[in-house]
């Protein structure tokens, strides 16, 4: 029987012979690189900390999400995922998933390109840091990424950055509540437009069309929502090997300190194993990328691998949620689908505030009857009366606000607390500046103006105090031309080690206010070319 590392499924979890490329992490960042390189004939081994979640159990996972008492459908939490925070609390385990497919198992699937200004905030405004690449450099990779993820979208957004080719799939038409918003927005001179969604508006890439289960976040039972499981599967079909339940403990370098030699991973039985390879790609997500480099400290690199700049773990950013909502005196038809169909990017490039602000028109305002029923302390006719009272007229807006990089917002290792393998857990120091708060207030002002114009009674506002992260961890291994100031170069290769790449939103020098994953995907495709070119 194969050495399955104590998992009990009989799958071999011993290392392969020296591979061309070892990818650590199987979220979209790692999966796209693995697929590209395996398809180019390279020998690829992917090490993934979490388990494989079989697709045929998605209905049950969906039930877990809806019903109290069944636990997290993606099983996050416990000693494996432990962490500590200081400053504003960061709920890390709500903000990521460990498993084949990574956090896209849970994600919402909104995918937009960054704007041109996002790549040059320092030049334009003296704020943050410029990227070492600009929009034009990334533009062809954005188009490729949209095809890979299967993005449904339309060309109706006058504020979007330049593009020629249409989206691979047609956009989801606006919802009924969008049509209510449209009248109010028109009177205020505010433009609404479609939202690019990594979600099948028609069958695409072997996956079904969206059926409207309404639970996209956290579980899509139809497979219409893109998850990186798709690219893991493609990589495997092209010959890659994926070892799940295999958290990498550290990377080990050669004597000279020029190159990584092996990724040391542990299996549940406690055995440590070494996967050697010619090239390494770290793709563990915005917090674990930094943590793995810090855990890989050595005599040669006492402050952590690839950290001669001291920037590893620093400049941690997320997008801040701003929102407001209330009730109308007519039906708003919410909670039919779990995604949004209209946004407003009109204020994104403004200089007041300079921070990017993106506005969303929600299709899931207010409680969903079934979830409310399960939390109610009654049943029968009394319950129905209560549901009738609470469902039907809610309306709400959301939005994302940019947070500029700040060296004091950072990921370090917490020496006081260990994970299930005896490694120090990540410690997140995070706070919001007055600038960020002001930008959130500005978003709230526009939201209130729209809701008031609509005639809604505003019942709640998520402003600078109540705000929380949008679950986009960015900045902790920033990209740049200067090795003294940044961790990776424009190709996502570390300045310090010649055969090590880091991919994901941790490389973003600034984060804009657009959901990050399309940019992650575009950068990964670009990095894959660079890895392939080096072999």
């Amino acid at each position, binding site marked *: 029987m194969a050495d399955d590392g104590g998992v009990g499924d009989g799958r071999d979890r011993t290392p392969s012979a020296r591979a061309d490329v070892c990818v650590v992490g199987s979220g979209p960042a790692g999966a796209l690189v693995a697929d590209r390189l395996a398809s180019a004939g390279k020998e690829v081994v992917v090490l993934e900390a979490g388990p494989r979640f079989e697709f045929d159990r998605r209905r*049950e996972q*969906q*039930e877990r999400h*809806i*019903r*109290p*008492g*069944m636990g997290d459908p993606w099983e996050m939490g416990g000693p494996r995922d432990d962490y500590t925070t200081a400053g504003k609390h960061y709920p890390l385990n709500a903000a990521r998933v460990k498993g084949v497919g990574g956090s896209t198992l849970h994600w919402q699937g909104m995918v937009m390109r960054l704007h041109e200004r996002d790549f040059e905030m320092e030049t334009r405004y003296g704020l943050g840091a410029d990227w070492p690449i600009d929009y034009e450099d990334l533009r062809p990779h954005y188009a490729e990424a949209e095809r890979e993820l299967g993005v449904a979208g339309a060309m109706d957004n006058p504020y979007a950055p330049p593009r020629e080719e249409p989206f691979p799939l047609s956009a989801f*038409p*606006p*919802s*009924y509540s969008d*049509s209510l918003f449209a009248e109010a927005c028109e009177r205020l001179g505010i433009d609404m437009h479609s939202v690019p969604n990594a979600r099948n508006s028609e069958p695409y890439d072997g996956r079904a*069309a*969206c*059926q*409207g*289960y*309404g*639970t996209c976040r956290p579980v899509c*039972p*139809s497979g219409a929502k893109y998850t990186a499981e798709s690219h893991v599967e493609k990589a495997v079909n092209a010959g890659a090997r994926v070892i799940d339940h295999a958290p990498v403990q550290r990377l080990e370098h050669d004597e000279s300190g020029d190159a990584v030699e092996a990724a040391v991973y542990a299996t549940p039985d406690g055995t440590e194993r070494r996967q050697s390879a010619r090239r390494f790609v770290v793709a563990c997500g915005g917090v674990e990328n930094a943590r793995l480099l810090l855990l890989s400290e050595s005599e040669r690199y006492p402050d952590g691998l690839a950290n001669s700049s001291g920037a590893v773990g620093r400049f941690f950013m997320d997008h801040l949620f701003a929102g407001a909502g209330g009730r109308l005196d007519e*039906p708003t*038809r919410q*909670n*039919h*689908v*779990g995604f949004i*169909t209209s946004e407003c990017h009109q204020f994104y490039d403004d200089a007041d505030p300079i921070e990017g602000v993106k506005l969303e028109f929600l*299709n899931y305002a207010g409680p*969903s*009857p*079934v*979830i409310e*029923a*399960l939390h109610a*302390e*009654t*049943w*029968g*006719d009394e*319950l*129905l009366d209560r*549901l*009738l009272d609470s*469902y*039907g007229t809610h309306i709400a807006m959301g939005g994302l606000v940019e947070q500029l990089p700040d060296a004091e917002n950072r990921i370090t290792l917490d020496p006081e607390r260990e994970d299930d393998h005896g490694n120090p857990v990540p410690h997140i120091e995070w706070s919001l500046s007055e600038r960020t708060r002001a930008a959130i207030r500005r978003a709230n002002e526009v939201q209130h103006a729209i809701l008031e114009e609509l005639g809604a009674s505003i019942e709640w506002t998520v402003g600078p105090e109540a705000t929380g992260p949008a679950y986009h961890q960015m900045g902790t291994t920033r990209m740049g031309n200067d090795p003294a100031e940044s961790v990776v170069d424009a190709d996502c290769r570390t300045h310090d080690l010649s055969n090590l790449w880091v991919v994901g939103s941790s490389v973003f020098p600034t984060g804009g206010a657009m959901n990050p994953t399309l940019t992650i995907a575009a950068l990964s495709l670009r990095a894959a070319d660079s890895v392939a070119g080096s072999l």
Partner: protein
Amino acid sequence: MLYPSDVDGRREFVETYALGRTEDRPAYRDGVREAAAQLDAVARDWNGDSYADLDAETRDRILRRLGVETAEPDPEGPITDRIRFYLVDDLLFAFYASPVGGRLVGIENPIGYPGGIESYQRGSMPDRDGPRGGDGDG
């Protein structure tokens, strides 16, 4: 009595839809069976009759006296929490995550049920009010 009183075919709904839902989850089915047997034992003890043979009012009283309406649903908890999880929440989930229950509240395709992609652009539920002019199916 968990379902609203003017719903027709409640028993049929439970037998076909609610029970069919978990057919391929043996551990879950065992949990349902055990909680049902225990509830039945309580009913016999307190009222001398099988739970199913009692009238709705008495059944309701038994559940409330057990504290089920405020219990934390927990598949591994004490009897009250398991009754909430395996019997009450199971049936409420099956009902309100289906059009049968959803419609009563005004949503023909509640979350957990496929079909929202057909209905999310409509301004009202068909068959009930009829589509509203202009801003309907789009």
